[in-house]
């Protein structure tokens, strides 16, 4: 090595730790787990479909063609057509966009809010603020999640943003609970005490020392929740409370298809398969994350 030690340090050392390092480390190691790699590939396919829907899909998803209703899978229409003669393949791909948006949007929103409140509550354990937050979490959690989401969408009106908000609202207490429980154990760690004894400010302690060290279980939860969110979005759309028709959403496609299940089973088969695909993708990915973040599992 020719470079001086101080140069090596200055080139490679970042001044402040970022919790994003946790995330990036997890994603780097996840590909080493078999299932996680498969999940990551599946999710990449979904992301690709969502981002490049207009280029991938062979037809306009909303273009109706009365003459070609209920067409089976074939060269002209890969997955066939629905009761209005729309190309199912294109609609699946556009539906992917909705699914990905809702899954990522609601999970991000709920985890950010949940972790933020949970960490602050945990750090102030036993104080009034902590009790208030727990109380808030418990109230939200006492409603069945899907009913609560339905109620919120019904009040706000069905739209993509409202679906994301509603789903996020039902899920944030779970993140809050995890974050709070983790904080309670992490804040007893000696390095938190060391920072306190050094005279470090509470906010810095929370952001630098506590949050990065509680993220592992939260990240695992993120993956599993995304799968759930895909299902719920479909459920809400199926009930007519999700995104507005004619926007292509897997839930809406299911809702349209089940009426014609005897005429054309394709209409319900493809969206169902798409949902299953998304579920498997997110589940495999989260399982991979769990293994990747668990140092005990990594060496096996």
């Amino acid at each position, binding site marked *: 090595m020719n470079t001086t030690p*101080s140069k090596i340090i200055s080139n490679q050392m970042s001044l402040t730790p970022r919790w994003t390092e946790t995330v990036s480390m997890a994603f780097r190691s996840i590909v080493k787990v078999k299932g996680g790699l498969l999940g990551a590939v599946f999710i990449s396919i979904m992301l690709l479909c969502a981002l490049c829907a207009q280029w991938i899909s062979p037809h306009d998803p909303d273009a109706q063609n009365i003459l070609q209703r209920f067409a089976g899978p074939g060269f002209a229409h890969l997955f066939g057509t629905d009761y209005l003669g729309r190309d199912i393949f294109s609609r699946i791909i556009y539906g992917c966009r909705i699914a990905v948006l809702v899954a990522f949007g609601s999970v991000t929103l709920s985890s950010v809010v949940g972790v933020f409140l949970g960490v602050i509550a945990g750090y102030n354990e036993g104080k009034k603020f902590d009790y208030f937050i727990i109380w808030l979490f418990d109230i939200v959690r006492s409603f069945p999640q899907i009913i609560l989401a339905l109620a919120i969408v019904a009040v706000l009106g069905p739209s993509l943003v409202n679906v994301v908000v509603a789903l996020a609202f039902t899920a944030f207490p779970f993140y809050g609970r995890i974050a709070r429980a983790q904080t309670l154990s992490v804040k007893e760690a000696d*390095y938190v005490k060391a920072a306190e004894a050094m005279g470090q400010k509470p906010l810095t302690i929370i952001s630098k020392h506590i949050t990065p060290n509680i993220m592992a279980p939260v990240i695992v939860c993120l993956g599993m929740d995304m799968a759930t969110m895909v299902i719920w979005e479909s459920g809400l759309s199926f009930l007519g409370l999700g995104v507005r028709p004619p926007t292509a959403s897997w839930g809406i496609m299911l809702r349209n298809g089940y009426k014609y299940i005897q005429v054309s089973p394709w209409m319900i088969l493809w969206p169902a398969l798409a949902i299953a695909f998304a579920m498997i993708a997110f589940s495999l990915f989260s399982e991979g994350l769990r293994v990747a973040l668990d140092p005990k599992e990594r060496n096996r």
Partner: protein
Amino acid sequence: MAMDLINIRNLKTYFYQNKGLLSRIFGEGLKTVHAVDDVSLTIKKGRTFGLVGESGCGKSTLGQTIFRLVKAKSGEILFCDQDVLKMDSKTLMEFRQKAQLIFQDQYGCMNPRMTVGQTIAEPLLMREKGRMDKQALFEEVGKLLQAVNLDPDAAIKFPNEFSGGQARRIGVARAIALNPVFIMADEPTSGLDISTAATILNLMQDLQDEMDITYLWVSHNLNQVKYMSDDMAVMYLGKIVEMGKTRDIFNEMAHPYTKALISAVPQVSANKRKETVFLKGEIPSPINPPSGCRFRTRCPQTMKKCKTYEPSLTDLGGGHLCACHLHQAN
């Protein structure tokens, strides 16, 4: 005569169990753990004060109370004539920069997600309120690592890549980053091998000579306290039973507990060995400490009045204090 740096007066730290309403009504009621009970001591500037006792005697709690990591119930902790317990948050932060801790668990005291460089840079950045030239910071970190005999390259590694002794030295580097006047070392060699422990002890002595640091040396290892400290106190169940110059205590130990403790320490050379005084039973629970003298349940020389009267610390001459009825007139 050295100046007083820390003056602790009648310090009490209690913990409470069964705090909840339900357990208070239906359970056994509020339980008070007398972790530190009416302790007074003086730590002189530039010296090492050894605090010994068995686990659960409150020595670590006493140390943590000084840093206000644990809330004190009552008493005074005077640091340069300022009461630590009454400091507002700003003065407290200033105090905490002058006083530092070295933890028992050398890995646990470092954030596992931060590199060693970040760990050591943290107090420096804090002092400069985040405004510090990057290059100056790197140099400072490198200097600190060299001061504890580590390679500056260590800065880019994570704590778990180091051996126990190296990790301990990183902890020392962080503690001395802000030129503290006072360091509390809580079992600084626990879990280390003999020769590694010797390295740490040498290092800490060198730092004391160079930087004029005052140590509060909390340990259960009497051999080490004898070697390191100028003054010492022996704690039992939250109370100090004997205190004075280390030399005096080892030469003419007065309290039966000190005698038992010192005699129980295994010695390699046969001529230093003393007839071991075996104590009966185990240390009682600090929730319901025995009445009178707290040591009486295990004491080989217990008397009638030990049960009813609590002995107070009395001077045996030359600042050698002992709390035992055997050494009290009347």
